[in-house]
């Protein structure tokens, strides 16, 4: 339980900007794997269901990802 609390507390200190970048990277890779699976572009809802997050989180995350150096960050961290 101490472990979980510490995790939660750490999580609380994380800047939104960083967490959104991580979500954006997950959205990108899930989008590709879903495309391979269903043979067309997945809709937002399909992505959200697969990632177990909301459509809104995806929308916000995608916009945090406009600058390429963010992507670099995510891939190389």
């Amino acid at each position, binding site marked *: 339980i101490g472990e979980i609390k510490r995790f939660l507390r750490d*999580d*609380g*200190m*994380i*800047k*939104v*900007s960083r*967490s959104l970048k991580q979500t954006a990277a997950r959205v990108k890779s899930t989008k590709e794997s879903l495309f391979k699976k269903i043979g067309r572009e997945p809709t937002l809802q399909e992505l959200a269901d697969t990632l177990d997050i*909301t*459509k*809104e989180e995806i*929308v*916000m995350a995608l*916009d945090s990802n406009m600058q390429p150096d963010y992507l670099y960050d995510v891939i190389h961290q």
Partner: protein
Amino acid sequence: MMKNSMKVEFMSKSQNEAFARVVVASFASQLDPTIEELADVKTAVSEAVTNAIIHGYEGKDGTVSISCRIEDREIEIIVEDNGKGIEDVEQARQPLYTSKPELERSGMGFTVMETFMDIIEIESQKDVGTKVRMVKRFASCEN
């Protein structure tokens, strides 16, 4: 010093609750808050918007508006409706008080807003509408 403001108006439909959260969250994100700080703001906005939709308009068509202002590390959020209003604001603010127990409301909406925001003020008039003003100060960014 950073100053910015916006106002959004939308229909009193339940699918707009998520929309309202994102609008405020993405405006607030200019202040580079932590996940927890942003979650607090989103929760408070959700409660205020839900109240406008289900108590203010009672499911009928109407417009909900949210004004936001940021200044330095502070965000002010005003959620307004032109719905039925609250007759007794003191009573409405009491933890566990709800006028709609049949809808499984918890009566904790205002308490949640008080807990997650630094300031909350309610102005309401019967048959005119309700205005909820909330302020939150974000911790300054050390990193």
